[in-house]
């Protein structure tokens, strides 16, 4: 119940509360389970696409692809983010109150119920609509209700987290809030604002339509509301990874973070510029005027600024550390980094993937270049080296210290070695697979497509060569996932110790300086966020209502 302040926040003795730990662990069990299922689906997909393998038991390729997307992009990430943020708050702000914790558990069970409902529909082949569920392909109503419950579950959990943050603020008026707690609040506020879009389309469009209460659906509107949520979704995945980069990794290195104020400012910019940009996923959609596409492209590129700030901070920390270890010359510090600490190596490899990942993002979001790669497998390559590498590898690094921390254990030599193997195997598999995807995409290979020779077209046979490479990469990734599962088991079993693994929380070089006031002025932040959304979306969404676009009936074509 009490709040952590001052040096307590950074002490290696400070722990996530015991009761809170149970909730964190429950979320993390879902993460492991989802990873295993989703990873298996992924492996099978790459094998099918190689042309050398056919699915048994009447399982459909698109059924599997739906499972892969829903269980990894939504279920796994959501449970991780809820669990990690609860841990981060409990560790830096202090333990949850009874009511805050109850919200966390309620959210967890609502998300679980929703997941099981959707999973059942996918298993019954009633929902092979992929994770974007584009209308007018029409899944069973229970699938949409399940997805809605997953979102509602996150809201309930997030409500408990926000209450925890604001209680700290209220009880410590005028003080700088703990950085990690502040970051969870930014991510949660962004989440609430953006999920309103997907909740609206599911509740008011998909559910009535799939139940047969209304005959047709407004497709442009449903797609636009989906992407109003779908792009901030990727930042919702990313920001917990950034929390680790900014606030945990410096402590892992035994040094200080670069700047607390800069970190907060970067997060504020992500709040502003994550949402009014979803139309860059619809650049070649009909129903939207070129001007509004262009405007959202410009807004999209604003996230380059906080991204560059983050890159600078990270390398500033690394160099500072290396020089403290006695590095001289221009790049000698690089050798001094802790290359045998799995927590660091997992994150660092993730960061390396993020460099081409970010560049690819710039290509995808620019109107003209998008047209060349839109819906090709280049895009799939892109999000596997963003969410599928920097984000997930950082999640693994977080679980590496968090799992023993909350279960009273330590990272031993074997666990650390498994972590290193995980990092290298993942890098190898993802490197091969994503490179093949980018290459094939540039040559026109479409995404979301099962194995096909396209009537024997020459170009299609070139694509198949790359698809075989993807299966090789996919196989390494599956091995990496097995290593990850073994690692999680290793971290949560075995003898307990008196001084469990630390949840590292770093101090910053500007720790004593006061926080920039306006970054904690939530009213101002929310007003600016909504103002940008209104500018970007008012006209295009209004046009979808006023231009009399005929509605579409539902189809079940799988």
């Amino acid at each position, binding site marked *: 119940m009490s709040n952590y302040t001052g040096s307590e926040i950074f002490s290696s003795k400070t722990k996530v509360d015991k009761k809170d730990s149970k909730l964190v662990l429950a979320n993390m069990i879902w993460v492991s389970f989802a990873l295993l299922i989703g990873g298996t689906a992924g492996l099978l997909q790459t094998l099918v696409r190689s042309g050398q393998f056919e699915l048994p038991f009447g399982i459909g390729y698109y059924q599997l692809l739906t499972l892969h997307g829903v269980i990894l992009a939504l279920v796994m990430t959501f449970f991780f983010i809820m669990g990690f943020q609860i841990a981060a708050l409990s560790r830096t702000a202090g333990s949850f109150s009874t009511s805050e914790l109850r919200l966390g558990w309620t959210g967890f069970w609502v998300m679980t119920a929703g997941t099981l409902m959707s999973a059942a529909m996918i298993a019954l082949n009633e929902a092979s609509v992929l994770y974007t569920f584009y209308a007018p*392909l029409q899944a069973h109503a229970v699938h949409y209700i399940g997805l809605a419950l997953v979102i509602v579950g996150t809201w309930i959990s997030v409500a408990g987290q926000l209450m925890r943050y604001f209680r700290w603020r209220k009880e410590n008026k005028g003080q700088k809030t703990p950085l990690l707690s502040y970051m969870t609040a930014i991510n949660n506020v962004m989440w609430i604002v953006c999920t309103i879009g997907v909740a609206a389309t599911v509740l008011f469009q998909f559910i009535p339509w799939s139940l047969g209460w209304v005959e047709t659906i407004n497709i442009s509107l449903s797609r636009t509301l989906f992407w109003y949520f779908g792009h901030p979704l990727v930042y919702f995945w990313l920001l917990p990874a950034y929390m680790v980069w900014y606030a945990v990794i410096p402590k892992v290195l035994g040094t200080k973070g670069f700047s607390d104020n800069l970190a907060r400012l970067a997060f504020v910019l992500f709040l502003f510029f994550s949402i009014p940009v979803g139309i860059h996923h619809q650049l070649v959609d009909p129903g939207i005027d070129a001007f509004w596409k262009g405007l959202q492209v410009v807004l999209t590129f604003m996230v380059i600024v906080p991204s560059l700030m983050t890159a600078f901070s990270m390398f500033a920390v690394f160099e500072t550390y290396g020089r403290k270890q006695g590095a001289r010359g221009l790049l000698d510090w690089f050798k001094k980094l802790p290359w045998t600490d799995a927590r660091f190596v997992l994150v660092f490899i993730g960061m390396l993937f993020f460099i081409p990942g970010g560049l690819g993002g710039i290509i995808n979001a620019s109107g003209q270049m998008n047209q060349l790669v839109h819906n090709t497998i280049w895009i799939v390559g892109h999000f596997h080296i963003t969410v599928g590498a920097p984000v997930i590898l950082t999640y693994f690094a977080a679980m590496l210290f968090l799992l023993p921390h909350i279960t009273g254990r330590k990272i031993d030599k074997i666990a650390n070695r498994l972590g290193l193997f995980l990092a290298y195997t993942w890098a190898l598999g993802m490197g091969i697979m994503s490179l093949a995807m980018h290459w094939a995409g540039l040559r026109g290979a479409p995404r979301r497509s099962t194995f096909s020779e396209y009537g024997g077209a020459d170009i299609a046979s070139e694509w198949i060569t790359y698809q075989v490479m993807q299966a090789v990469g996919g196989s390494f990734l599956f091995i990496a996932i097995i290593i990850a599962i073994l690692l999680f088991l290793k971290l949560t079993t075995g003898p307990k110790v008196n001084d469990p693994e630390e949840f590292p929380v770093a101090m910053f070089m500007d720790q004593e300086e006061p926080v920039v006031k306006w970054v904690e002025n939530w009213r101002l932040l929310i007003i600016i966020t909504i103002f940008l959304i209104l500018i970007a979306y008012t006209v295009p969404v209004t046009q979808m209502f006023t231009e009399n676009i005929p509605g579409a009936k539902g189809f079940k074509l799988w």
Partner: protein
Amino acid sequence: MHKYEKIWISLGTASLAVFLIILGISAVHGGHTPAASGIETINPEHVREDARFSEPGLKEATDGDHDYDLYFLASAFMYEPGEVEIPAGSTVKIHVTSPDVVHGFQVVGTNVNMIAEPGLISTYEMTFDEPGEHLIVCNEYCGIGHTDMTSTLKVVNGGIANE
């Protein structure tokens, strides 16, 4: 802010500005606006009764600054026409719509790549200079026969542009 940080952020922001200016000039001056932009509606249940899509294919343009209109119907799971020939050097305005679900329309090896939605017509204007054969594929998942959707666009010598 640290001095190096200022340099880094200024350079980054400046290159971002240059990049956006290039995009803007290319869009406004070069006419490279995204495909399928704008709102042109059609009733998806009566697409085949519409004069433009009753017999989809290449038609000589009656207005505008392009030579031909090329109408494509993307449905589950085929394109109509299944093959089309375009005279090299001609400027073609492509119109695509769908009577059922969302489809993709990607002419492999060209810049033609757009989404077809029921209720709307997606258009893109393009000049085909190089003779050759292009595979057309659906790149938006539309159901079990998604990868069966193909057509061929052949750019051939002869025709209006060469007369």
